[in-house]
């Protein structure tokens, strides 16, 4: 291709008209769009191509030079060597890129560097040089909107990285060109020094160095004190009987060792064992722990019976889990394990008992306390009831739960795979509740609409608020339960 007045032209494709665009692709690298690529098999092929390319170049006749090339020409050879490794039978490929660049007469275009630009249109170039000059010492922190010339852009890769670059300058022997010859040589000298290197800007090391110095000092102290303690051991020898000194030394050593041990490793070891325990318990309690230690969310425990909340809004249903641990679980507003709020919840509302029966199964019973409204499957209960998997439990008017017994559930699933009943959700529990109270739902709804609704709303808001709060502090609650146990 040739670069003439900053426009790139394909010299090997006579059909190609107009300027080609230079672009960069993240994978393929810098390239000239639509530039012809021709395969060759011999040196002769290369020469022929070069010849035909040269013929297409822009050449001008002037008084000074009959064939003065006005453009930069670039000829790229991509040389690929493929080798089969005899031992492994693997093919390897080596690619070598040779770029030959022929620049125009230095006089007309390559007058860069120290020379003066004539036209005001190059003011930007001057200012750029000014700004760049200021920062050559410090790290590059300005942006120069003066585009590299296409030639520089193409050469960039050749000037940095792993390539070798040779430059040939052609000079005129005529004395009338003395000054020009000199400046060409000066130019060549400057070009020789061009290197293209991206600077790596490091962060200052100050903090790291301070840290390390501290550590070095600690280790040195340790070394010293070890030396001393060894000394104190050998000083059992009668010659060394300066007991007080020895004592000081031993104390000192211990102090330093303790200090040294006060590292993160130590702290970690202390907590690691606790963590293991806690994680398994948390998992059992419905909180799963991610690989990096973060919590993932609620999941049903595999063994412990528990209550899940049901809510009018399906999205808020089954968001809370309450565990019925072995022994007694109290429900109410005060001094209880499961704290509920609302007008119809007594201070001590009801009690769950969990025990292992003679068959080795875990059984849970619910006992309502006096004066507290508690319903199981819609029926108000007044005495101890054995709970089964899937039972609906309503406390007060608005706290609706489903009782889950994972082991019973498993047994049930095995027994009846096809029995898919209606899901025990909020609606189901509410309807059931009303039906069991012997109330015609429609009539009742109409009748009680006004007075119930306002109350219900108020209470629901409270319950929702509580739900939110509990959701946030859930982990803490479960932990507390754990600690109390």
């Amino acid at each position, binding site marked *: 291709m040739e670069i003439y007045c900053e426009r790139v032209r394909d010299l090997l494709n006579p059909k190609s008209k107009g300027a080609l665009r230079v672009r960069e692709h993240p994978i*393929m690298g810098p390239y000239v769009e639509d530039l012809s690529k021709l395969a060759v098999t011999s040196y002769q092929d290369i020469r022929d191509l070069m010849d035909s390319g040269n013929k297409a170049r822009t050449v001008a006749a002037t008084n000074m030079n009959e064939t003065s090339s006005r453009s930069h020409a670039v000829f790229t050879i991509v040389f690929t060597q493929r080798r089969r490794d005899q031992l492994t039978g693997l093919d390897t490929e080596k690619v070598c890129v040779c770029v030959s660049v022929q620049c125009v007469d230095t006089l007309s275009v390559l007058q860069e560097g120290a020379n003066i630009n004539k036209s005001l249109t190059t003011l930007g170039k001057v200012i750029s040089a000014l700004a760049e000059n200021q920062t050559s010492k410090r790290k590059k922190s300005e942006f120069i909107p003066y585009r590299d010339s296409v030639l520089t852009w193409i050469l960039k890769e050749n000037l940095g990285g792993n390539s070798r670059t040779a430059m040939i300058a052609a000079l005129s022997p005529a004395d009338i060109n003395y000054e020009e010859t000199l400046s060409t040589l000066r130019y060549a000298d400057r070009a020789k020094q061009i290197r293209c290197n991206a600077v790596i800007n490091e962060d200052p090391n100050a903090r790291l160095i301070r840290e390390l110095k501290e550590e070095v000092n600690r280790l040195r102290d340790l070394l010293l004190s070890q030396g001393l303690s060894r000394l104190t051991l050998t000083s059992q020898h009668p010659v060394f009987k300066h007991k007080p000194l020895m004592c000081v030394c031993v104390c000192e050593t211990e102090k330093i060792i303790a200090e040294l041990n006060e590292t993160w490793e130590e702290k970690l070891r202390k*907590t690691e064992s606790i963590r293991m325990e806690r994680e398994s318990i948390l998992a059992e309690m419905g909180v799963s722990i991610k690989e990096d230690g973060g919590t993932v969310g609620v999941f049903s425990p595999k063994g412990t019976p528990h209550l899940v909340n049901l809510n009018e809004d399906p999205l808020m249903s089954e968001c809370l889990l309450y565990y019925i641990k072995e022994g007694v679980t109290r429900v109410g507003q005060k001094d209880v394990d499961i704290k509920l709020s609302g007008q119809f919840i007594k201070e001590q509302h009801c009690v769950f008992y969990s025990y292992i029966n003679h068959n080795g199964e875990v059984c849970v019973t619910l006992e309502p306390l006096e004066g507290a409204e508690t319903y199981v499957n819609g029926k108000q209960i007044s005495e101890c009831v054995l709970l089964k998997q899937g039972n609906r439990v309503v406390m007060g008017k608005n706290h609706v739960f489903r009782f889950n017994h994972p082991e019973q559930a498993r047994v049930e699933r095995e027994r009846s795979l096809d029995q898919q009943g209606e899901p025990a959700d909020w609606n189901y529990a509410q309807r059931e509740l009303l039906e069991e109270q012997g109330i015609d739902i429609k009539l009742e709804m109409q009748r009680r609409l006004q007075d119930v609704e306002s109350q219900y709303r108020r209470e629901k808001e409270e319950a929702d608020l509580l739900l939110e709060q509990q959701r946030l502090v859930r982990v803490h609650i479960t932990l507390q339960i754990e600690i109390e146990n």
Partner: protein
Amino acid sequence: MADNQSAEWTAVCEKFRLAHELSEIESKKDPENNPFRSKYKARDLFKEIHCSLKKNQIEEEGEVDNGADSESSQTGDGEPGNDFGKAYAGDSPAGLRVARLAVVQYHLGVNHIETEELSAGEEHLMTCMKLIDKCTTTRENVSLFIQARNQLGILWAGRDEIEKAQGFLEIAETMYLLYMKEDGQPPLDLQDFFVPQGEELSQQEKTRRFEMAYTHTLYYLAQVYKNLQQYERAGQYCHSTLQRQLEYKQFVPLEWAINAATLSQYYITKTRYMEARHCLAAASVIATLAGEIPSEAAAKESEAEFEKREELLQKRAEIARCWIKYCLNLLQDAKKLLEDNVGELDSDRQEELKRARRNEEEEKEKGRKSAILFGSSDTFDSICSLEEKVSSMLPLDFEEARGIFLVGQGYVAQAKEYFEMDGHVTDHIEILQDHSALFKVLAFFEEDLERRCKMHKRRVDMLEPVCKDLNAQYYLLICRQLQFELAETYYEMMDLKLAVADKQDQPDVHTIKKFNLLCSSSTKYYQMFLDSVRSPEGKFPEKLEDDLLRPALVAKFRVARLQSKLISSNPASQLENLSLSLESYKFVVQYCEENPEAKDVVETELELSVEMVSLLPLKINRIKSTMASSN
């Protein structure tokens, strides 16, 4: 003048007009293989004019002009305005005749230079200069005086004889100032010497051309000072050039805007933010004068529209990038002022600077007036209102820093629109790096450690995917920069996490895991950087290149530190980490032993590495003995 009306004179004028047209207009249409055709034709015409003038001269004053060429040859560089030894008054008929000859010589000189015959061109220009120097400087010849010296200035600068160029140009400058002080009337333009009576240029046009010549003088001087490494002065002259271009409406909006934006970058490096901001605001405003951006549809229709669209979008994106650098440097310079010796915000210093600033408020107002302002009345208001959108004072606290950060971030988004990854890889990544640097410096001002950590996370998020996708074969240097920056960012995050954890009473397992993850991510990128230095066969070079020396050794040093920082409760893995760390420290020490020139580059790091190499085994042995005793 008597001969003005003669037929002969009319012919001369016509020739001059034609030569001028050939040289300035026709020549642009010359074919590529014969680029100077019109210039050569023009040259012949100028030569003919010269002959007729000479003939006239001999006819009219044959007796006077003997050896005029050598007579005043030594006064060529004499003080302008010094009238001693001048043969003619500039406004006398004889003076005019001489000036006319000089104009032709001038054109011949320029013509030769333009056709690459520099030495011949120089001779003509010198003759021209000597001719004018025979006359007193007046309204008639002052423009020629300046323009001839402009040309000689460029010629000599082209030959790297900067001082010589400086001489010519400074005389031109002094002459302009002197003339404007003593006369100030619109002077004759070169063209005015060869027009039939009544066809002279208007006063306005005369002024315009004269001022343009002087603008060029200033511009050439800017370059001379640049080459003489008088950067401060060069900057002033560039600024004046831009101001004058605007004042005399001699500018292409987009070009001017880019130049002003570039000048802002010069001011940034000089930490003159008020001037930098003024340049940028002017650049943004003037760029809008370049017209509407053609729509995508229009660009598809015609090549010209496509190119116009491309150009406008590109230049605007470039101005945006200059703004980014402005914001970034403003923040970074403030950081440098405020940081203590480990790079943390020094609150005493902060208070002190805030107090000092209150006192400076008044000073600032004064500075504002003396600052060199751009813009005619029609653009001035828009420039000022754009300036008000971002401070030019170094930010001293998070709120101020945030304001500047947000402006910078806005320009990042704007610049990325044009400089997309596909097609503009290098530019796109440079913008990302700036964006990352903006976050980095903002983090410095943030007091909350968790939030600071999140800012660094943003840096990782923007750089990591790019680093993964980039082909290191073509973008090796960029890849290295990205790897290094990612390694450092992870390191920073790790430090922050540790600081957060230190404040907690109970070490939290989550934090420790996170910490280890950050540690190993940082190590990973340092390692990638180090691997990029290896030969294709995987060998680490025996001798690192100069510009890689420090980064590579620092990377190794940091890897050593990171390996020993990994937290593990398992003694076996502790042992392994420490051994790896020891290996890395040993590497640094060994490399410096084999390449003593490296010692100065990594002095402190080496010192500490030596210490660690001698002390780490102690720690390792302790762990070994605990392991042995617990078994």
